[in-house]
């Protein structure tokens, strides 16, 4: 079995490349405001939809709330490739685990799998996650840091907009909110990130998880719609004057060879 220790095989090669002048490709970071809140009956996760590459917006409407299991979802901040691949890997592992155990996966299992992998990579996998879900033991909310530590809390925020979102939570969170109150609070917190943090922007995604499953509200709020949407560029024939017309059927063209296709022999 392959060693589970740190594997830094490529570091020497990368150092050499950097020294001989090759600039490494930049990681696409998600800027980001992601939040999670526990409430009566479940958890509510929220995220903005801006992905940045330095000062440029790479994706105006990316999805930051990732599927882990039917009852567990995970918001990701940091390097987009890392959050996407890490959550997909653990989702896959958890599906196999579910089939092996015959039981609904638990949030703490997903947390343990994620943190053990991130710790093994020493923080080089830049994934800061907000993991939430509902299982046999109730509703749970975790925050997981790139180096592999986790905190289990009633409300969490991560990403460059985390301070803006946390200021909303610290002034308005209370235990045992109704689902609707929680959704309103999450929306307000993400909006604080969208409008006060340059790394966050565009729309607000919300996912509500209860014992009955997950309710995914993609683009729940769209407070940044384009003022002048792209126009329709269809111009009916006759808009400009037609001077002449020549139609050449494809069968007559010399540069196109029509081949007959032999059917595959399945005998």
């Amino acid at each position, binding site marked *: 079995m392959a060693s589970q220790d740190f594997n830094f095989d490529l570091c020497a090669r990368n150092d050499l490349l950097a020294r001989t002048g090759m600039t490494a490709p930049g990681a696409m970071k998600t800027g980001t405001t992601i939040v999670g809140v526990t409430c009566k009956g479940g958890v509510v996760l929220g995220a903005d939809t801006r992905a940045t590459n330095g000062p440029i917006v790479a994706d105006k409407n990316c999805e930051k709330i990732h599927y882990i299991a039917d009852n567990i979802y995970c918001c990701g901040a940091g390097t987009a490739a890392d959050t996407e691949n890490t959550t997909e890997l653990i989702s896959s592992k958890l599906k196999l685990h579910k089939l092996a155990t015959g039981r609904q996966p638990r949030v703490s299992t997903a947390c343990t799998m994620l943190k053990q992998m991130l710790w093994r990579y020493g923080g080089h996998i830049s994934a800061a996650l907000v993991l939430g879900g509902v299982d046999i033991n109730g509703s749970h909310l975790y925050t997981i840091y790139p180096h592999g530590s986790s905190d289990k809390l009633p409300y969490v925020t991560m990403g460059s907009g985390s301070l803006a979102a946390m*200021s909303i939570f610290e002034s308005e969170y209370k235990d045992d909110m109704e689902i609707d109150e929680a959704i309103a609070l999450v929306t307000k917190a993400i909006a604080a990130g969208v409008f006060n943090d340059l790394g966050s922007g565009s729309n607000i995604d919300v996912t509500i998880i209860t014992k009955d499953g997950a309710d995914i509200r993609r683009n729940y709020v769209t407070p940044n719609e384009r003022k002048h949407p792209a126009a329709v560029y269809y111009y009916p024939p006759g808009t400009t004057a037609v001077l002449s017309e020549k139609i050449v059927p494809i069968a007559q063209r010399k540069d196109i060879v029509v081949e007959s296709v032999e059917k595959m022999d399945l005998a």
Partner: protein
Amino acid sequence: MDFFNQHALPVVARAPTLKTNNPDFMGSEKKLAGATDPTTRTLNPYVTGTSVVALKYKDGVMMAADTLASYGSLSRFRNIPRMAALGDTLLGASGDISDFQYILKELEAMKEKEEYCEEDSHVHSPTAIYTWLSRVYYARRSKFNPLWNQLVIAGFKDAKPFLGTVDLLGTNYEDDHIATGYGGHLARPLLRNEHRPDMSAEEAEALLRKCMAVLFYRDCRSINKIQFSKVTAEGVTISEPVELPTSWEFKQFRQSGH
């Protein structure tokens, strides 16, 4: 020419120097290995204050700051007022406390000189003090010797509130609400959501209290000992330090284990 001295510099008349190998002896030719001239400009702040938050309201401007002067991660001096009255102007400071004390002394000297020399009961307006400070701070930064502060200048002149900020780089602007340091990240979203220029004194204080509570929860270099101050047509008032109510009782905090 002498083979060994052909590159020797011409002898120039100079005062006799005492030659000694003792590096501690004043005027010795020999310096300690690695010794360089001492630095005579600011490189880092040492004793510092954290956020100052201020907002305009119906009758003037309200400001709040905690009374902590930190020494890095040590809560060194826990009873230091970071807001001061300068005639009709209210000045709040975050950043290096010694630089704040220095600029206060300079402002006091300027005021005394006015009173003594001119004797025309002229008081510098808040705008005048703000502009003077922004020039002084930019001049210092241009000499690579900044006064390491972010100042908040508030006043009430000609029945209109005045609120502006000047920082160690000389950046200066006026706004309806100001938040320095961590306040920029934690208080500004709250101020942008809830501030209105026609707020009453009670509403303004409630919003400031909310901001200062959030800062106490989330800024490591803060304490729960806050001074509130305001400047209105009546002048400047700075309150005694108060403790804000905080809440740490979440159900999950009381339950054990993961």
